[in-house]
């Protein structure tokens, strides 16, 4: 009973892998002044004395609300050697506080300190290059495991999430991107205060319990998304190749050797630095009256430690001056992706990139679909997308294509380049530009009907622009995009020396490729 489209290979991956495809996720349209005006009446904001920003948007259609907690820190902020740390903390944020998830926090605290101490000793021995003593290592590991067993005695597993779920939480989840970390769920409106208690407690009062078990869970997440998935493997290598200095090139789920060495101490240091009032926006959308709700939210969220926004990264990706490419030869189907460095979302041309993406990729009228899929019939799908893998810092404008059987990555590359050349050598049509502007506005309007989507967008725009109104005011920038802008920007960034490409070339299975002990199941045909 539901529509099913053909598999959208990369789309699925990108959607899952980049929750932080922010600004593009809700295409920015220009709204008329009355749209903004009507929202100004529904929205109340308050900055607390600890710096935390609260936004309440009243939408009383049904007795429910959705929330989004937006932390302006993600895996791009992981310290060197600790890739995956922001994500590890996100998992910890489901483990409870000093009041929930424990039978006796005072005793648990002592036991957790012991876990850290034994882990430190074990890790020091483990990392020794010279003079590592296997027997000592084993003893230290045993002590580490015993300390965990002791600490576990005080744990009420998953109590935080159980309380939320028993009170009707729906869509309970969180995501860590390179730029940010977001927590969200929806609930019946009469649980607003209970939610405020839970959410503020985990921001202010997180306890690093069961950290090392959770590290194993996160490594399984990596195996699922990256190691055991051909596109996951390709994209990780693609980004690592495209970037030489900035953390956008680093595995965001974390390199296995680094995730394996993360400690609860490090996760809590990350928390102390980034989970401060000035770095957090909390938005609630739904059947909530700001007059009565704001004081409740203020009471609970004032508990979050005060603090200014932490400094941003100093590293700026140096200008690329040589084309880079990488080829994975394996027995999976062919694939092609390429990317060009572009500025961050702060750039005055940000909307021009959106326009290029729309004209090249949006629907069956898009240039890449018409050329590669419909006319040449060489690809199952072909699109350009941006910003990737994040938006906050200079990032990539990427293109990918999925070859049809019998066609190669090289054909994808040539066909994409032909379309890019057209953008550079001639202006787009008036109809194409107008289509972009019309669709951007309609898509923004459509997004307003969903409590969770709206909460996410308000949090994000408040964080990224310092004012949620920018969600609507972006209209101006969209409207100002000209045909000449598109041609100018295309000529500036879509050049060979600014390009990184990656592809999967399909290898034939080795002759007689049956697996040992599994003769019937080999790849030989």
């Amino acid at each position, binding site marked *: 009973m539901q529509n*099913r489209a053909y598999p959208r290979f990369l789309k699925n991956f990108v959607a899952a892998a980049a929750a932080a495809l922010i600004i593009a996720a809700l295409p920015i349209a220009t709204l008329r002044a009355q749209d903004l005006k009507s929202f100004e009446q529904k929205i109340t904001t308050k900055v607390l004395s600890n710096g935390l920003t609260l936004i309440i948007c009243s939408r009383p259609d049904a007795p429910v609300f959705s929330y989004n907690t937006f932390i302006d820190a993600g895996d791009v902020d992981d310290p060197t050697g600790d890739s995956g740390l922001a994500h590890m903390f996100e998992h910890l944020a489901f483990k409870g506080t000093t009041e929930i998830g424990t039978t006796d926090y005072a005793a648990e605290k002592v036991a957790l300190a012991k876990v850290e101490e034994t882990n430190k000793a074990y890790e020091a021995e483990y990392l020794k290059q010279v003079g590592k003593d296997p027997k000592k290592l084993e003893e230290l590991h045993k002590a580490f495991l015993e300390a965990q067993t002791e600490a576990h005695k005080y744990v009420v597993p*998953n109590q935080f999430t159980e309380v939320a779920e028993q009170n009707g939480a729906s869509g309970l989840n969180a995501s860590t991107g390179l730029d940010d970390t977001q927590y969200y769920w929806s609930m019946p409106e009469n649980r607003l205060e209970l939610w405020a208690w839970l959410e503020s407690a985990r921001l202010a009062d997180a306890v690093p319990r069961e950290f090392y078990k959770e590290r194993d869970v996160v490594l399984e997440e990596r195996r699922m998304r990256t190691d055991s998935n051909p596109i996951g493997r390709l994209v990780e290598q693609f980004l690592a190749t495209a970037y030489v200095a900035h953390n956008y090139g680093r595995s965001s789920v974390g390199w296995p050797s680094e995730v394996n060495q993360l400690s609860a101490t490090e996760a809590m240091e990350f928390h102390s630095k980034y989970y401060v009032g000035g770095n957090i926006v909390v938005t609630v959308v739904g059947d909530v009256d700001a007059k009565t709700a704001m004081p409740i939210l203020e009471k609970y969220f004032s508990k979050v430690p005060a603090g200014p926004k932490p400094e941003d990264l100093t590293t700026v990706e140096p200008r690329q001056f040589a084309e880079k490419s990488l080829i994975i030869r394996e027995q999976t189907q062919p694939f092609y992706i390429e990317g060009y460095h572009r500025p961050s979302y702060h750039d005055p041309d940000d909307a021009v990139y959106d326009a290029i993406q729309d004209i090249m990729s949006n629907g069956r009228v898009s240039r890449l679909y018409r050329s590669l899929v419909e006319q040449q019939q060489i690809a199952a799908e072909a699109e350009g997308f941006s910003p990737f893998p994040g938006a906050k810092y200079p990032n990539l404008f990427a293109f990918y294509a999925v070859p049809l059987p019998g066609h190669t990555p090289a054909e994808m590359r040539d066909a994409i380049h032909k379309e890019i050349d057209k953008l550079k050598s001639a202006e787009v049509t008036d109809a194409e530009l107008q289509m972009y502007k019309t669709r951007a506005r309609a898509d923004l309007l459509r997004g307003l009907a969903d409590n969770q989507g709206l909460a996410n967008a308000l949090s994000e725009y408040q964080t990224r622009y310092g004012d949620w109104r920018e969600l609507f005011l972006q209209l101006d920038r969209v409207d100002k995009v000209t045909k000449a802008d598109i041609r100018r920007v295309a000529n500036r960034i879509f050049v060979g020396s600014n390009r990184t490409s990656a592809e999967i070339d399909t290898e034939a299975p080795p002759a007689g490729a049956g697996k040992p002990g599994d003769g019937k199941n080999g790849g030989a045909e």
Partner: protein
Amino acid sequence: MRSMMKGASTILLATATLAAIASPSVLTAQQSKPWEKIPIPAMHEFKPHQPTRIQLKNGIVVFLQEDHELPFVSGSVVIPGGERDVEPAKAGLVGMYGEAWRTSGTEKMSGDAMDDFLEAKAAHVETGGDIDSTEVSWDSLKGDANQVFELAMDLLFHPKFSEEKLQLAQQQAAAGIVRRNDDEGAIATREASKLVYGANSPYTRQPELATIGAVTVADMQAWHDRTLKGKLIVAIAGDFDPAAMEAKVRATFERLPTVAASSPRHDEFKGPTPGVYFINKDDVNQSNVEIVGLGTDRRNPDVPALAVMNEILGGGFGSRLFQKVRTELGLAYAVGGGLGFDYDHPGTLRVEVLTKSPSTVDATKAALTEIKGLTAEPFSDVELKRAKDNILNSFLFRYDTRDKVLAERVKLEFYGYPADYLETYRTALEKVSLADVTQAAKKYIQPAKLAVLVVGNEPEIKPGLDSLDMGAVHPVDITIKQPQRPAGTAGQARQ
């Protein structure tokens, strides 16, 4: 980027023999539970906004759901008949029909012209197909609603299937076929269903290069003409005037002949042949384990008890599977499952665990223990309360928007369920007792009838699957058939 739970809504079953026994005692040890002191006021009164239902004389049913919040109008026409009704030699027909129907267009306007026309208005008309139905749907800004409706109706009544667009759909389908063994999770899901329903069942048989190649334009036209005689369900939502809309819909659909009743299906559902099945994939470091059996259908009066059992086994963070396999053992990120119930045929019992290759056997055993525990480990009052609270307190998210209410009504109409099904279901859930769950588990969980499927990297799986002690390991051949193609050419796919 990554989220805490994978596919939580689809499958997430959990277990915890230990947790279930352990948690009541630790809970009592907890000194205070400050969250329990927070007042929970009465909820604001709420009655879901039901659409208007209009039954035409010819049997066609229309739902109109007004919603003036935003200036859009959307609609759909659902047509009975889907992939399960396709002859096996043409498997894949409905998927390609769903594509080519729209991309071909009509006598008046080609699909390409339709693309230009609609996209300039940020509007959509789309077609698609599934296992038991096909559909045309549309949406647009209010100002364009009349034009877009006319276009959708033109497509519904006067499609002109083109050779060229069928070919395009065939190429897309072929790309899906040759790529279907690249993704481990997709292999596991697909092959697990085949174990339950049988490889040649109408519910699982898969398109092959030969079967999609056998589909012609005449086949699509014949399919269209045949299915359009069925009981159509028209649903329209958004910012419109109800009287004018009703008149328009009547004018369009009342002239059609009396709908033909769809012939009842007589499918057999035997469930899997018990045992261990294995598919080797040498480019992964994680095994996908699927434990499967036969489920039931939604008309079964035991469904409310089974829903509560599912919640205890795999519903969310507090469930037995999640507590044990993920939280306590750290063996998986993705773990879940439950006994499925479909609207008009038995669903599948399916528990899934994704775990690193070396822990395949440990994780499988842990999950099996939790499944068996449903009949061996008594359910506690705490578990029952948690499960029922979870389901009932979030129940209103099934109808908290007008679109959801409309979609639910269309579904109930399609499968012939009463319009108040959700209310009676909710009432039945409220009444589920410990004895009901215990009885349902004993009746429907039959560990000896389960099959275990593992997709993974054989040399890394240590200990091997023989140590599951479930008999010989049966390899499953997933080689993609390559008809009429010399080996080593395009589209070559490995297993």
